[in-house]
């Protein structure tokens, strides 16, 4: 136990542009998988206005939430509730009055500082859908950034939009730490005069500027790794959608993404949610459960889903 206390927890965050594609399902089950494999996990629900992770575990809405953390200075440990699963605890962020959006910058810093100190191996944050910069900043602070997508054009379109926003924000914050806060927004504002039409050209443009800009951008590109998980796969050829999206991120936008795996569609998922029953406990031997395990393992090791290309043909 002392080992856990000394070591900093690894933070994983899941976000995305579109709602209802299974982000909360995915992160709650990945948390469940980690907990089953003897890792201590704290799952944080930071979904604006739509905090519902507790429902996935059949737990009632807690009375104390982050509102009390800010208003009454209650320690963050006191907000943690039991999920009913060993090694897995929940922290419900935004039930009721306080939305994460309304948190001030200093409050956010304080919250993150406290989150980092939580005693756990993994801290998983569900950011919900939306591209508000507050949510994106939290996303960028994670050790592993996870996005979820389904093989539908609208979800994919929203994913691109989200990822572009995230990377744009990453460039801004990285340059801000070198005293160049306004640089990227300024270039983007005057993109016509710079003949910049897209993110790729923006990155190329930044690469030609004075020191230290090219180095900062290069390191931002190098450190940027988003893990893509493809959800609700119904047919085998759809598995390749993850590879396609990953490839387009690299070739169209210029940043690296990793296809961490897919989870197939299962009619029993909504049935379980409606019964407020954790899916993995209800169907421990299902294909979906196995795939969640595979995704979780790939995330732990930071490696891509290797069968991706073989599934194509």
């Amino acid at each position, binding site marked *: 136990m002392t080992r856990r206390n000394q070591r900093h927890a690894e933070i994983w965050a899941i976000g995305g542009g579109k709602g209802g594609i299974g982000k909360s399902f995915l992160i709650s089950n990945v948390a469940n998988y980690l907990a089953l494999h003897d890792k201590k996990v704290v799952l944080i629900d930071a979904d604006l206005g739509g905090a519902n992770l507790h429902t996935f575990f059949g737990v009632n809405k807690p009375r104390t939430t982050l509102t009390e953390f800010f208003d009454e200075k209650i320690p963050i440990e006191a907000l943690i509730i039991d999920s009913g699963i060993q090694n897995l605890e929940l922290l419900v962020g935004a039930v009721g009055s306080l939305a994460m959006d309304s948190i001030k910058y200093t409050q956010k810093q304080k919250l993150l500082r406290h989150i980092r100190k939580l005693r756990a191996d993994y801290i998983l944050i569900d950011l919900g859908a939306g591209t508000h910069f507050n949510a994106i900043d939290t996303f960028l602070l994670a050790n592993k950034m996870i996005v979820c997508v389904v093989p539908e*054009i609208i979800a994919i379109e929203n994913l691109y939009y989200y990822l572009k926003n995230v990377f744009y924000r990453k460039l801004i914050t990285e340059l801000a730490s070198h005293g160049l806060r306004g640089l990227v927004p300024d270039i983007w504002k005057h993109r016509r005069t710079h003949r910049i039409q*897209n993110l790729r050209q923006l990155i190329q443009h930044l690469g030609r500027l004075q020191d230290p800009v090219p180095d900062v951008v290069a390191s931002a590109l190098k450190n940027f790794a988003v893990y893509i998980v493809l959800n609700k796969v119904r047919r085998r050829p759809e598995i390749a*959608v993850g590879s396609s999206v990953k*490839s*387009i991120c690299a070739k*169209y936008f210029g940043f690296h993404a990793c296809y961490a795996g897919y989870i197939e569609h299962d009619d029993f998922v909504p049935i379980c949610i409606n019964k407020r029953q954790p899916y993995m406990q209800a169907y421990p031997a299902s294909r979906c459960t196995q795939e969640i395990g595979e995704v979780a393992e790939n995330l732990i090791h930071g490696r891509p889903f290797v069968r991706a290309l073989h599934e194509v043909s």
Partner: protein
Amino acid sequence: MNRDRYLRDFEILEFTPDAKLKDVRKAYLFLQDLYSSESIASLPVTDELSYRDKQSILDDIEAAYQHLLDFFAAGGTKGTGQLPPDRTDLRELVESISAYDGPSLRKVRECLGISIEDIAQETRVPRHHLRHIEAENFDELPPPVYTRGFVVNFAEVLLLDPQVVAKDFMSRYNDWRKAGTDKPRLRTKRSFRS
């Protein structure tokens, strides 16, 4: 050997440098299809890049693939470097083949500098079957359903289109079988029915 160039080729084809030849072909075909046709993954970004930028992505993929073919032909990661880096001979050879048969598969294999042993190891197809395919010893080959699978595996390693190769080869095999059924001495070991 320009190591950086190879690493860049692998990056363009989105592979780690431990990739195998047939994986490279799969990646190439996959990417070529992705960037030359419309799909749910590419449609939302149609307006993102200009036509010229898109064309240059395809050109890069093509160039990386051709270059990696040469790389593998020259001994791959083992880096023996015996063959000349320019492999127009390979391209010309493949283009000169109108329909694939056993001897043409052997020619492509030899041109790529791959041994039967290497292919057997890669595909798990027994060596003698590969040799019989090349020599077109049809009477030594297993029933069509197995032979077809072996030919597909063989073609993949040779970076040929497995479907085309299998079609060409199997039509030759089936012609031989048809001719064989007229004769009474069809070997029983080849037939499950008898």
